[in-house]
């Protein structure tokens, strides 16, 4: 399958964030991902777009779904995929972050998928390696493939993104998902409301191009999509909000609060969910309303598209001058 013909060149070596991408860069990625959704529903899900390529998933923060999604994406494209969880690696033996990067780089990977708990850490690593780097989440900064998969999910269900009104609710301050989504949705002409208690909305967030609301009633009004964010347990013990009970009472999404949005509004969540904390369990499972399962499916397709887009920019010739892919 030669889906790369669909794809006009991605203008960057790395995918570090949504910031800096143009609307057409994003649309091209989504178009390519669309083709992979179809492929992923076939019995034979394999292509050879990345045959011979080595992809390393370097996760400094534990993750189940993002890491397995990237692993599956790489494997379906024919790459050799290696997973490295750094909690078990040399970083605990005093090796610095950059030493780890330089060591991995010496193994000549073509694609490096990195997640790290510090904002900016993936960009820092990208400066030190010679392969293409894909940001799988850095601190509270960006998580570009999550925003792309959310956009693909919405586009496939509603046919468009421009003109939609989308509420992102919960812990905006600590959320890379919120930042990447805000950037992407703005770029494609959607209107974004950020909803949460004042302790979880960062300073000057309105200057990023969103409207800020502190009640679900106001924030959800007229929205086509309600995107809930995961609330971390450690933030709920009196530090930023007093209790799970109060949070659920004020911001937890149930059918009653969803009623503030447009009729037939859809619900999304990047996972993993805290059922009963930010979202009502039965609502999350209602496939008429909830896009949460679609999001997971789109995740693999979007990551395949991103991997292919970056791989297309990799040099195709080995240093000796012989073709790398034969």
């Amino acid at each position, binding site marked *: 399958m030669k889906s790369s013909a669909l794809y006009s060149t991605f203008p960057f070596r790395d995918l570090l964030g949504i910031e800096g991408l143009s609307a057409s860069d994003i649309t091209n990625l989504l178009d390519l991902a669309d083709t992979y959704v179809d492929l992923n529903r076939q019995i034979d899900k394999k292509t050879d777009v990345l045959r011979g390529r080595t992809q390393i998933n370097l996760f400094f923060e534990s993750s189940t779904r993002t890491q397995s999604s990237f692993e599956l994406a790489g494997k379906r494209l024919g790459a050799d995929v290696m997973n490295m969880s750094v909690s078990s690696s040399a970083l605990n033996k005093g090796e610095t972050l950059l030493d780890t990067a330089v060591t991995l780089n010496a193994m000549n990977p073509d694609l490096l998928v990195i997640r*790290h708990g*510090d*904002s900016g850490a993936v960009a820092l690593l990208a400066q030190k390696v010679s392969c293409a780097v894909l940001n799988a989440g850095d*601190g509270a900064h960006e998580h570009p493939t999550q925003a792309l998969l959310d956009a693909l999910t919405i586009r496939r269900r509603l046919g468009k993104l421009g003109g939609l009104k989308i509420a992102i609710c919960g812990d905006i301050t600590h959320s*890379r998902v919120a930042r990447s989504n805000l950037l992407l949705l703005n770029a494609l002409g959607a209107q974004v409301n950020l909803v949460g208690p004042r302790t979880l909305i960062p*300073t*000057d967030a309105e200057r990023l191009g969103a409207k800020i609301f502190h009640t679900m009633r106001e924030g959800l009004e007229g929205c086509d999509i309600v995107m809930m964010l995961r609330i971390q347990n450690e933030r709920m013990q009196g530090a930023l909000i007093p209790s799970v009970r109060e949070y659920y009472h004020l911001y937890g999404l149930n059918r009653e609060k969803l009623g503030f949005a447009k009729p037939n509004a859809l619900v999304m969540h990047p996972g993993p969910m805290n059922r009963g904390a930010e979202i009502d369990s039965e609502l999350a499972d209602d496939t008429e309303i909830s896009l949460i399962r679609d999001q997971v499916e789109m995740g693999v397709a979007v990551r395949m598209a991103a991997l292919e887009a970056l791989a297309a920019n990799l040099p195709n010739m080995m240093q000796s001058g012989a073709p790398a892919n034969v």
Partner: protein
Amino acid sequence: MSEPDRAFINARLIDPAQELDTIGSLLVRDGKIAAIGTDIEILDTAETLDCTGLTILPGLIDMQVFTGEPGEEHRETLATASHAAAAGGVTHMVVMPNTTPAIDDAALVDFISRRARGTATVRVHPMAAITKNCEGQIMTEFGLLREAGAVAFTDGDRAVMNALTMRRALSYASNFDALIVQHALDQDLQSAGVMHEGELATRLGLTGIPVAAETAIIDRDIRLVELTGARYHIHQISSGESVEAVRQAKARGLAVSCGVSAAHLMLNENDVENYRTFAKLNPPLRSEDDRLALVDGLADGTIDIVVSGHNPQDAEAKRQPFAQAAYGTVGVETLLSVLLTLHHAHGLDIATLVRAVAGHPARLLDIDGGTLRPGACADFALVDLEAPWIVDADALQSKSKNAAIEGRKLQGKVEACFVNGHSIFDSKMETKK
């Protein structure tokens, strides 16, 4: 056998302490300034140096220099810091006590003084800790520390957080008329913050430090100064609101003074764009409005002192994700050039700028220096006020190369520096004849 006199002729002489700004000569005899002015007597036996086109300023007093000695000599020693200082026209370094171990005992003050005499080329004045190990708990022996040579008291880069401890320190210090110097940043409000709180921090996904983390400590301390009558100084303020708080305290007649770092006069929060850790400072670089308020505060005399806040960090400590990287910038070598650049860019009066790095710190700390008066030690800098140059961190003298103003264009450069009339730095020998 005494040395011959040395006469520096045809120089522009600037010494705000004498309200002096004229073309003339400076005569050095036996390490002291023997005469200064347009029409002074120079013996035929004197060695003459033609300084046409150059300016002589009093040797600078940098009131906040962190070194790594003792404990972290790989970052900077007193010796290497002094080489950087000399190249920047700084003849007096006031060094901070938050070393390993902290300078919280008279024997350690003595250690710094002896190491400085043995290894450093400029004069070194230690500040001692306010509290044991700079931990904010138990007061140090202000009396003994002063006798050993501590010029003031500070916990370095940590605020004394407990208000009662601070009250007692101010009260006890006033017994000796000692100066208490605060790092005004509330650690609880700072929490995990690493840069100025605002739009950029939100976009970068970094935790912000609100301006209130600084003003909360300043406002509290001003109340305590009122209560105790002590002399109080803030190392570095970073915001326009802090300028206003100090302005009001001064208007009420309190013995409150403050400093600002050269970096904060030149840079703003946008310099941390792309997670540039060299611009990660404590206090943080704030908005452009704050920067302009600091420049105004310096011009109108609300801000008394400009410091480098020289804080050498090795490459590993800075080559980290932003939140984990060390704070600080080197700067003792570029302090004067930054000020002269502000003179050219903002029209700040040279006399005001020189006072902020010479006369004012000398008076606050009771240091013999900061002037070119006859009888004073011949500590001075020979400067080309106009020379443009670009900061190349690798070319700096400091052992560490973490310069926040790396790559910046500056105007004004130190050509030579003298302590006791002896050259300790000379950028090019052709200035001598």
